[in-house]
């Protein structure tokens, strides 16, 4: 143990005297803090969106209830068109009284943008088919979405390993090239333990700096409470594990006994393959094998349903008018029933198309889930998004909750619309509310996958590194 500590202390002192490692660590810490600040700004914007949507809903509901009260008091003289009449259940459930379903940013949302800039945090649920409200996007410059932002997930996945590699790539080869390896090996009975201590010093510097910067950044930008969550423990564990993977990789390559330039080129190539090419290849392959569904199919199904329902309604109305020639053809009741009929037809067909699309996306995700083991970078990126509550798991949960709420909403409004029962203020008070999942429940959803996909290769690489160090000769 003392040999290990001696190696660690010696290497730490050497590192402290060099300028380049200090600058690299400073840059890493600075970038980490900047990324957390950028994340906090983003979270604030999203929270504002959610708050604004909730405020708009509250304002809309009070306006509707005010109008209802005026109607009850007989203060509204003119006949309101059905699409502006708060008593009309078909139009109220279909849009006037639309309910806000919001996804509140999780405590660690600042750590990864994930899907948050693509998936809208606010959805206005109506009784119409889901295609009409589920695919309303937030506005952003597409070039911004393409390039992404400087979030912590980016810093950890791409920059952090490079700093680790820069510090660890030439522990053995550097000593050999400087001619000091023989002395180092002769300094202890177990030279490999000394070397392990030296490697630990080089690894500890970037890992500890990053963890300290993340702790500080989260405390400043998300509040000290965020440090006490299980998510933060997950975040720190992911950073530690991913860092150890790259340390072990550097050790394994260095342990091969080649020169520094070989190590540098091999490790940079490995980084390019693992962090850039494999994720890109996996995405392309999954997209090719199981292409994303054509959402236009869903819209066309809704439109076809509307046309068919219109036709059926026309035929039914024609029959009715034959026997009731005095009835007004385009009255409010008829318009409400026609809207309800088209909505119901579209609902049935769109639900089946969405189910098919989800199954297709599930196949794509399943393939990605299998291939993700080849890319520790992708694995880490996904884990960070999960911990931040901006990953697929949370959004899919949100969509499931919306689907359940949509049914609840329809159960409330559709029977009233069908029966032509006018809505009252009490109905508005009793209308279903979307119960958001608690943001604090967000956590690391794939720890097992992470341990298998990252922990196992780390162990194997560490073994290779230990073997290489044990066989090390000064030559």
């Amino acid at each position, binding site marked *: 143990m003392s040999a290990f500590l001696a190696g660690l202390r010696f290497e730490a002192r050497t590192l402290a005297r060099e300028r380049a490692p200090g600058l690299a660590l400073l840059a890493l810490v600075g970038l980490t803090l900047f990324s957390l600040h950028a994340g906090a700004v983003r979270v604030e914007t999203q929270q504002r969106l959610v708050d604004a949507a909730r405020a708009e809903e509250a304002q809309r509901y009070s306006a509707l209830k005010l109008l209802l009260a005026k109607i009850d008091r007989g203060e509204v003289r003119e006949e309101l068109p059905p699409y502006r009449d708060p008593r009309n259940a078909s139009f109220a459930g279909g849009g006037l009284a639309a309910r806000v379903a919001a996804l509140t940013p999780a405590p660690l949302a600042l750590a990864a943008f994930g899907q948050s800039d693509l998936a809208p945090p606010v959805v206005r649920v109506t009784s119409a088919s889901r295609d009409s409200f589920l695919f309303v996007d937030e*506005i952003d410059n597409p070039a911004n979405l393409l390039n992404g932002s400087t979030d912590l997930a980016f810093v950890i996945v791409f920059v952090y390993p490079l700093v680790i590699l820069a510090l660890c790539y030439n522990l053995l080869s550097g000593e050999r090239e400087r001619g000091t390896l023989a002395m180092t090996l002769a300094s202890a009975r177990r030279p490999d333990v000394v070397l392990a201590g030296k490697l630990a010093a080089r690894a500890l510097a970037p890992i500890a700096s990053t963890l300290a910067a993340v702790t500080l950044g989260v405390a400043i930008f998300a509040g000290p409470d965020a440090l006490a969550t299980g998510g933060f423990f997950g975040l720190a564990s992911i950073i530690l594990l991913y860092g150890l993977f790259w340390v072990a990789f550097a050790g394994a390559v260095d342990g091969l006994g080649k020169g520094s330039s070989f190590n540098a080129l091999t490790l940079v190539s490995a980084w390019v393959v693992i962090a850039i090419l494999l994720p890109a290849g996996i995405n392309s392959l999954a997209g090719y094998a199981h292409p994303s569904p054509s959402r236009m199919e869903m819209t066309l199904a809704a439109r076809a349903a509307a046309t068919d329902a*219109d036709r059926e309604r026309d035929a039914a109305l024609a029959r009715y008018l034959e026997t009731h020639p005095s009835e007004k053809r385009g009255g409010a009741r008829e318009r409400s029933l026609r809207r309800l009929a088209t909505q119901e037809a579209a609902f049935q067909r769109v639900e089946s198309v969405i189910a098919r699309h989800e199954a297709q996306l599930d196949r794509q995700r399943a393939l990605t889930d299998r291939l993700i083991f080849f890319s520790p970078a992708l694995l880490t990126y996904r884990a960070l998004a999960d911990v931040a509550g901006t990953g697929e798991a949370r959004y899919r949960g949100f969509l499931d909750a919306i689907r359940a709420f949509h049914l609840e909403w329809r159960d409330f409004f559709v029977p009233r619309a069908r029966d032509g029962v006018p809505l009252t203020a009490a109905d508005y008070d009793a209308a279903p509310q979307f119960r958001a999942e608690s943001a604090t429940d967000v956590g690391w959803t794939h720890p097992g996958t992470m341990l298998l996909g990252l922990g196992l290769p780390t162990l194997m690489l560490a073994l290779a590194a230990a073997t290489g160090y044990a066989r090390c000769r000064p030559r």
Partner: protein
Amino acid sequence: MSDLAPIPAASAARAPGRASIVRAIAAKELIEMRRDRRLFALFVFTLVLIGAALGFGAAENLRLGRERSAAAEADRQLWIGQGPKNPHAAAHFGQYAFKPVSPLALADPGVNAYVGSAVWLEAHKQNETQFRPASDGGVAARLGGLSLAFILQTIAPLLILLAGFGAFCGERENGTLKQVFSLGARPDELLAGKALALIAGIFALFAPMLVGLAIALLALSDASKLSLADQFIRLGALALGYLAYLLGFVFLTLGVSALAKNSRAALVTLLAYWLTNSFLAPRLATDLTRGLAPTPTAQAFRAGIATEKAATFGHDETHPAFLAFRKETLAKYGVSRIEDLPVNFRGLQLRKDDEIGYAIFDKHFGALQASFDRQDTLRASAGFLFPLLAIQPFSMAFAGADSRAQFDFTTAAEAHRRDIQNEASENIIHFAHDEGYAAGPDLWRRIGAFSYDAPTASFPLAHSGPAITGLTAWLALSLSFALFAARRQRPL
């Protein structure tokens, strides 16, 4: 005329021309590159990646093209098969406009995953495009896919710097630099020869890629819908743009190699720059542009339109603007009752409301695109320093996959929406004599399907000023830097 020819000076006879020195240096560099097994393996690997990217790109383009054609045809049938109804009800049902896939998007899909490909053309409203493919892609998809643009923008520069980082300092370390200079080679010639070798390497990658792309264009482009000549002009522009981008890396690599103390320092410097250019600069530029030139939120954007639309009447017959319009119309026709008008008043009302709406939509959607343009210009303004910020918008623009191309499509779609509205309102004005008026399939057929003619290559050229300036400045700066660095060599 004397029979005696002047004997050339001995030194002049032996001294090879500058061109032959440059050629000799280039040939030697190429041989060394070819002998470097790791470099050769990287080169072959990149070629394989290029092949895979071409394959994925072509397959995706074909799939999207098929999907959108089928959707457009299905929507047309729905439109025609509506059955008799009031033309305004048909206008509410509307049509869908689908964005055709640009053939060169197989090389650079640009922002296609982040913009919708369909827009609903309905009465009273200009809608935003729907269905961003990236929304379905999950978190993993945010790390990007394999495309030719990705390889050229990210992997090719890495290949150049790995091939060239030791060009000067490696020779200095090996002691061969002095020998080369002692043979009469000048720094400029050495630079030119080494640059030529790296350029030859680029061409070896470029040539199969260009041939593959040309074949794909010929095979995948529908000549009846777009001009093949235009596609090849775009391809030529892309080749020039990427040439400038990669040449800049050649000169930068050689310059750094000439100035660096040793090859390790050269490699570390170049890798740090490559990382910054490829990954950090685009993200930092996003954060910066978002802060300096913010875009509105969807809620603010829609609220802005709704506020202005509230000043017009739509279907609200109690709106003051409606009452004023009715008064004005009655006065214009010299009658006192709507029933006495020679035309249908509801049709006039719809047409008037639409005309007011068109100006409101033009203002807001124009302002939104202007805010995107401001951000894009800001991003490209650092292109001389980090050329990815210049080549990326340039490449997307000529591939027909940038936000400007998207705006052109949505503008064309909106023009078609207005044609539908105008035709429906005109029909009501002239033919609707009672409340139960219904038009039939003849009118639905007369109102055509949306057809989009993508703009010619002059369109991206006109909108790529900042990117072209950035790329030119990048090339000029890197060349100047390389010349400066090479001339600082002190060989003897």
